[in-house]
């Protein structure tokens, strides 16, 4: 027996299949109490299904979901202590803002005076004091988003679920709401589980991120780790964007690209790999610089023909094509004179900023 609190949410070896197709294959993860976890992935990767299993709108085919240490599989949504912010907000159009927020409290048979007090408190928290009497049709998208959040928060759920919470907002409002969401999370200390396909949003908001692809979790880690050391090719590419050089481990610590050793790769980079392993070298575009051929590169370098130069002020993107046809991108600062389109140049980077993933 230990005294430590059980994880807020435990997902234990879940699979979900619809007939022949498998939507989720063996996913396990724990969400700690008070943590903000985001499930990130492209559409159709199974992230929403996972969220719906926590809230009770879907049941796993095999595996278990525990909230606060207790299994909730088979428990109706209304018997679970979760609250969800829906993608389309799902604010009841026949009720006022205050009535929407009060709904969950009424369902929990909270006393009338207590309801009024907590609704007012919540309206203040979401900066909508005085809007309680308005109809849903009379408020803006950003306000509706806050009401949806307030309606879920007011019941003080043990887990707050957010399904693409900011997806319907425009860029500026989204940035603003990100900050607000983060602040509310910090102030209330509740457990948040969100789902999004927006990697930037995930990186900004979360304590930890689970990156999903094709029904599996590829990596579950904090934002820094995800960005600095993605575990798989998919994560490297999906989070932050990356250059990937498909290579093979050669003898004597060499990394072979199209049969030839890549220059500047130290033997410690491949020390855990066996000869003949197929790997990808990952390096972020923002770590790459270009220089003229024949120059002396301080670290690893690779030749590429410049196909495109995209100038956007502070940063310019130099897009090159490697010998195997794949693209290689460098983000250089905009003041530097760019290489000419069609010329072949050297793309180079600091060896400590690149690493290998299995392919």
């Amino acid at each position, binding site marked *: 027996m230990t005294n430590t609190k059980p994880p807020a949410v435990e997902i234990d070896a879940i699979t979900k299949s619809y007939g022949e197709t498998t939507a989720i294959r063996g996913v396990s993860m724990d969400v700690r109490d008070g943590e903000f976890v985001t499930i990130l992935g492209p559409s159709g990767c199974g992230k929403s299904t996972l969220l719906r299993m926590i809230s009770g709108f879907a049941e796993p085919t095999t595996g278990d979901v525990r909230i606060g240490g207790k299994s909730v599989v088979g428990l109706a949504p209304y018997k679970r202590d979760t609250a969800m912010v829906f993608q389309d907000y*799902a604010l009841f159009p026949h009720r006022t803002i205050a009535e929407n927020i009060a709904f969950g409290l009424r369902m929990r048979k909270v006393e009338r005076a207590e309801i009024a007090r907590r609704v007012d408190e919540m309206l203040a928290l979401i900066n909508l004091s005085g809007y309680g009497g308005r109809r849903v049709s009379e408020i803006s998208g950003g306000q509706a988003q806050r009401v949806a959040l307030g309606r*879920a928060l007011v019941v003080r759920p043990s887990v707050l679920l957010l399904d693409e919470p900011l997806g319907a907002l425009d860029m500026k409002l989204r940035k603003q709401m990100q900050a607000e969401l983060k602040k509310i999370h910090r102030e209330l200390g509740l457990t948040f589980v969100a789902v999004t396909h927006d990697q930037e949003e995930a990186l900004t908001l979360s304590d930890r991120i689970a990156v999903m692809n094709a029904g599996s979790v590829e990596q579950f880690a904090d934002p820094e780790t995800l960005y600095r050391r993605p575990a798989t090719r998919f994560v490297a590419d999906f989070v932050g964007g990356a250059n990937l050089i498909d290579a093979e481990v050669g003898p004597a610590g060499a990394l072979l690209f199209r049969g030839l050793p890549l220059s500047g790769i130290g033997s410690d980079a491949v020390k855990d790999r066996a000869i003949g392993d197929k790997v990808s070298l990952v390096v972020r575009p923002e770590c790459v610089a270009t220089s003229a051929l024949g120059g002396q590169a301080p670290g690893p370098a690779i030749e590429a023909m410049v196909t495109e130069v995209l100038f956007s002020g502070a940063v310019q993107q130099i897009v090159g094509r490697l010998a195997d046809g794949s693209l290689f991108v460098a983000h250089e600062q905009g003041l530097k004179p760019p290489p000419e389109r069609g010329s072949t140049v050297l793309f180079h980077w600091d060896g400590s900023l690149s690493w290998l993933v299995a392919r």
Partner: protein
Amino acid sequence: MSARPRSPQERGGFALLSLYAVLIYLFLYLPIAVIVLFAFDAKPIPGLPLDTLTTGWFVEALRDQKLTGSLLTSLRLAVVSAILSTLLAMPAAMVLAWLPIRFKSLVMAMVLGPVVLPQLVLGLGLVILLRSAPDLVGEPAIILAHTTITSSYATLILYSRFLGFRRSYIEAAMNLGASELVVFREVILPLVRPALISVFMLAFTDAFGEFVVAWFVAGFTETLPITIWTSLRQVISPKVYALSSVIILVTLAISLVSQLWVIRQTRLTSKVQTS
């Protein structure tokens, strides 16, 4: 928003189309206008030209016990049919629209069947069925027959309404702790009430005006359409036009108002937000 015509060519097309639309609406409402007109014609055998106008036929119609009797019978039976079919259709349409069910196409065929089945055939089938329950011939049989038809219409209409209903309303309510029954009472019912009322009204109008099936199973019961049918086989008295014109106008008003109301209400609950 409609695309406003710009070029002269398009403007000409628009004018032509508008003229055509006027003609079609004339075609649709001319017979109605004629019935209303002849309800005021003083001549016992209606015809042009009209010389004197009178409201006497309306009074006559009210005095005619056969007419008013069958009118009341029709009203009574149609109300019962409309209630029954709304009660049958509402849960079925909710299930069809929102829950995964097995044999969905078989179920849909059962729902669609009475709509596409020629009413004459349904009437005859019911006549044969009623041979084993002769006591039901008359009012109960008419109710059974009409409910069979109108519950199908009602289910189809409600089904399409419910398909457009945002599922997340239901999920949000459940998520906040409302059980199925509470969701129904607090969220679904208030939001679909307009659709239910309009379906009830349409079922009522349909049952009220239906003739063929009722005629076969009516026995000695006379509904208003049966009475009118009988009078159409003889020389028809203008008091029938008087009564008909009142009923037609009421029918039009009911369907206009209930449909307009529903259009306005569904904007609130539909999946696509129209701002």
